[in-house]
C-alpha cells in the first residue's frame, strides 16, 4: 500500500497536468477559430478560381499545356506532405504520415523514385529518418501559413515538372471535415486534372453568354494553370492547420477527462489508505489497552 503522502502528491501532480491540458484545449480552440476564419476568407478566391478555370478548360481543346500532359516515362514522384509542427494532437500527424508513406511505398513498387517536400516539423522529421529523400523541408511555418509559402512550394514542383525532373506530384493533407473528423487526403497535383464544373455551379451561374478573352483562351489558361497548383497547395495547408487545432482540441479534451478519472481513482485510494491507517492505529490502541487490563 502506498503511503498517504505519496498518494496526495500524485493527486496534486495529476491536477496540474489537468490544468495544462485544459489550457491547451482552450488555446487550440482559439487558434482553430482563427484558422477557420482564414479558410472562410480563402473560400471565395478558390471558388472563383475553380469556376473560371473550369470555364476556360472546357473552351480549350486537348492537352495543350505542359502541366496537363502526362509524362510518358514516370520516374520521379514528389509527395508534398503537410503536417503540424507540434505533437499532442492525437493520431493526426501519425495518420498523415502513414498515408504519405503508404503512397510512397505504392509508387516505389511502381518503379518510381519518391521524394518528399515537407511542410511541418513532424512530417519532415519522420520522413528524413526514412529512406526517402526530402527535397524541401519547412519547420515552424504551419502556425502562420501564408500564400508565399504555398507559392514557393508550388514553384518548386512546377519547375521540376516542366524540366522533367518530376513526373508526378501528390499532396497529402488533413481535410477539415468537422470538429471530430480530419481524415488524411491524397490529392494529385501534377499532372493537373482540370477542374470540372459541377452541375450545381452551372445552374447558379445563370445564362451563359459569349465571353471575351484577352489574350486568347490558350494563353490565359497557360497563365492560370500554375496558379491553380498554388491554390490547391494553399488550401491543403490551411486545411491541415485547421485540422491540427481541431485534433488537438479533441486530444486535450480526452486528456482532461482522463485526468478527472485519475483524480477520482486516486482520491478513492487516498481515502482507503487513510482509513486503513486509522484502523491499524485503532487496533494498536485497543490491543495496548487490552494488554494493560490484563
Amino acid at each position, binding site marked *: 500500500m502506498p503511503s498517504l503522502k505519496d498518494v496526495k502528491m500524485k493527486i496534486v501532480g495529476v491536477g496540474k497536468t489537468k490544468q495544462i491540458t485544459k489550457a491547451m484545449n482552450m488555446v487550440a480552440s482559439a487558434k482553430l477559430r482563427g484558422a477557420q476564419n482564414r479558410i472562410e476568407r480563402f473560400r471565395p478566391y478558390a471558388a472563383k478560381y475553380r469556376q473560371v478555370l473550369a470555364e476556360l478548360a472546357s473552351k480549350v481543346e486537348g492537352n495543350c499545356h505542359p502541366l496537363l500532359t502526362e509524362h510518358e516515362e514516370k520516374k520521379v514522384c514528389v509527395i508534398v506532405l503537410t503536417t503540424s509542427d507540434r505533437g499532442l494532437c492525437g493520431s493526426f500527424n501519425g495518420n498523415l504520415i502513414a498515408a504519405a508513406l503508404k503512397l510512397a511505398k505504392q509508387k516505389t513498387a511502381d518503379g518510381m523514385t519518391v521524394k518528399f517536400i515537407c511542410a511541418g516539423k513532424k512530417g519532415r522529421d519522420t520522413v528524413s529518418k526514412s529512406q526517402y529523400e526530402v527535397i524541401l523541408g519547412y519547420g515552424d511555418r504551419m502556425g502562420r501559413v501564408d500564400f508565399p509559402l504555398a507559392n514557393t512550394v508550388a514553384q518548386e514542383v512546377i519547375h521540376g515538372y516542366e524540366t522533367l525532373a518530376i513526373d508526378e506530384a501528390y499532396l497529402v493533407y488533413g481535410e477539415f471535415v468537422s470538429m471530430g473528423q480530419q481524415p488524411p487526403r491524397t490529392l494529385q497535383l501534377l499532372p493537373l486534372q482540370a477542374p470540372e464544373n459541377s452541375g450545381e455551379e452551372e445552374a447558379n451561374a445563370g445564362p451563359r453568354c459569349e465571353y471575351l478573352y484577352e489574350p486568347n483562351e490558350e494563353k490565359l489558361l497557360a497563365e492560370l494553370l500554375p*496558379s491553380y497548383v*498554388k491554390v490547391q497547395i494553399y488550401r491543403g495547408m490551411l486545411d491541415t492547420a485547421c485540422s491540427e487545432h481541431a485534433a488537438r482540441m479533441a486530444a486535450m479534451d480526452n486528456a482532461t477527462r482522463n485526468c478527472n478519472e485519475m483524480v477520482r481513482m486516486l482520491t478513492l485510494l487516498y481515502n482507503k489508505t487513510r482509513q486503513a491507517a486509522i484502523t491499524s492505529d485503532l487496533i494498536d490502541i485497543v490491543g495496548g489497552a487490552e494488554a494493560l487490563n490484563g
Partner: protein
Amino acid sequence: MSKLQLEVVTPDTKVVSEAVDYVSCPGIEGEFGVLPQHVSMLSGLKIGALRYDNDGKHQYVFVSGGFADVNNGVMSVLAESAEIAQDIDTARAQAAKARAEQRLSERGEKVDVVRAEAALQRAVVRIQLAQLR
C-alpha cells in the same frame, strides 16, 4: 445609372467589395476600362495599378497580376496580393526594392532574374501608388 459591383479578392482577404462607376485595369495586353453593363469578359492582369471611380472619387488599388472576370454586372479581380493605396507599407516596399535591385546587380548563378525583376516591379508600383494617395 446602374453600377458595377467590383470585388478584389486575394487568398487571404477580400480587399474591395463595392459598387462603382468605372474600373481601369492593367491588362496583359494593355490598360482597359470597364463600365457597368460590360459584356462578359476574362482578362489576365499584370503587376500594376487598378483604379476605380465612385461618385467622382478615384481610388487606387495595387494588384500583383492575376486575372479579372466580368460577368452579369460583377467584376471579380483575383490577385495573389492586392492592397488599397492607403494600406501600402512604403517602408516595406522600399526595402523590397533595395533587395531586388541588389539581387539583380549580383547576377550570379543562383539569382532567379525573372523573379527578382517581378519583385522589383511590384515594389516600384507600390511606391508610386503610395505617393498617389
